[in-house]
């Protein structure tokens, strides 16, 4: 075999060896694939949908005059053994609550400081001659939040037998009236999974 043929053969072999399953894009609105032992997007959707439905039907976010409550996002703690961004849950809830027409979320105040620092940075333009001062945000324009949303995601692993494990996930959320410090709505959504111990995230 010539050196050239050997090079071509090696290249083809390498390409074949590197080729895996063809990627497919998941239709998230019609995903019938089995679940995983960790938390996937369907679990966050389930938890967020159940939480929002519970919050809307409780009446806690229905203003008597039909207006909107202003909501600040406080801390949502990840107490699982997985590396999660709790915004996977919170963002979905925020979107649904905003769409409900009953709540608007402030990004100027949150449990981790301002979510969008631009509200404050834009105010530093006060007195800057380069900017039309009529268009710079004035004092006393921001709206303080009525409610604060906080929560926690918990994971508990329970061994069923030598091969199988049950993993309990608990999504817990609380809506606190900032004026009084009273929790006007609370709920917990459990998501329980059973499967091979080999696939459990510890």
């Amino acid at each position: 075999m010539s050196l050239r043929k050997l090079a071509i053969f090696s290249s083809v072999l390498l390409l074949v060896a590197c080729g895996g399953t063809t990627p497919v894009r998941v239709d998230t609105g019609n995903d019938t694939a089995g679940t995983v032992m960790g938390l996937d997007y369907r679990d966050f959707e389930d938890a967020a949908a159940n939480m929002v439905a519970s919050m809307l039907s409780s009446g806690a976010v229905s203003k008597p005059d039909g207006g909107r409550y202003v909501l600040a996002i406080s801390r949502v703690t990840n107490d699982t053994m997985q590396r999660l961004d709790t915004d996977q849950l919170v963002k979905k809830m925020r979107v649904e609550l905003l769409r409900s027409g009953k709540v608007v979320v402030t990004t100027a105040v949150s449990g981790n400081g301002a979510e969008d620092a631009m509200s404050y940075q834009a105010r530093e333009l006060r007195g800057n001659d380069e900017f039309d001062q009529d268009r710079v945000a004035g004092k006393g324009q921001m709206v303080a939040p009525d409610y604060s949303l906080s929560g926690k995601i918990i994971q508990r692993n329970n061994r069923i037998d030598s091969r199988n494990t049950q993993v309990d996930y608990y999504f817990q959320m609380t809506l606190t009236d900032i004026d009084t410090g009273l929790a006007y709505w609370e709920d917990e959504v459990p998501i329980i999974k059973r499967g091979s111990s080999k696939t459990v995230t510890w």
Partner: protein
Amino acid sequence: MNMVRLLLLGVFLLATPSWASGEDDPQFKNIRNTSKLDLIEVRTWVDRGGMENVLVEAESRSRFDKKVRYRVSWYSANGEPFKTIMSRWQNRTLPPKGSLEISSVAPHARAVAYKVEIEDL
């Protein structure tokens, strides 16, 4: 999915939108039932938050476990659908002769009509 049979409960009128049609009994409008499920009850009410709610109860006639999926979609009076994750498909395995209870809250105060779909898997 060639085993799929469709049970479409159709549009139930909460505010009689002009685009809806069906038979006289408002409880069971536009039903297409080709599944081994009996529809027991459709109940609606307005909750403390002023939102429409629907509860659908069905019962399996099967002598075996039955896997189904369902979703509830909500619409405004002029037929505009509300995009919400609360309208996603959900799976359920019913034991023999087991019952299925589906409840849903409207995602918006303007949501006045709904559609419940249940499919065999």
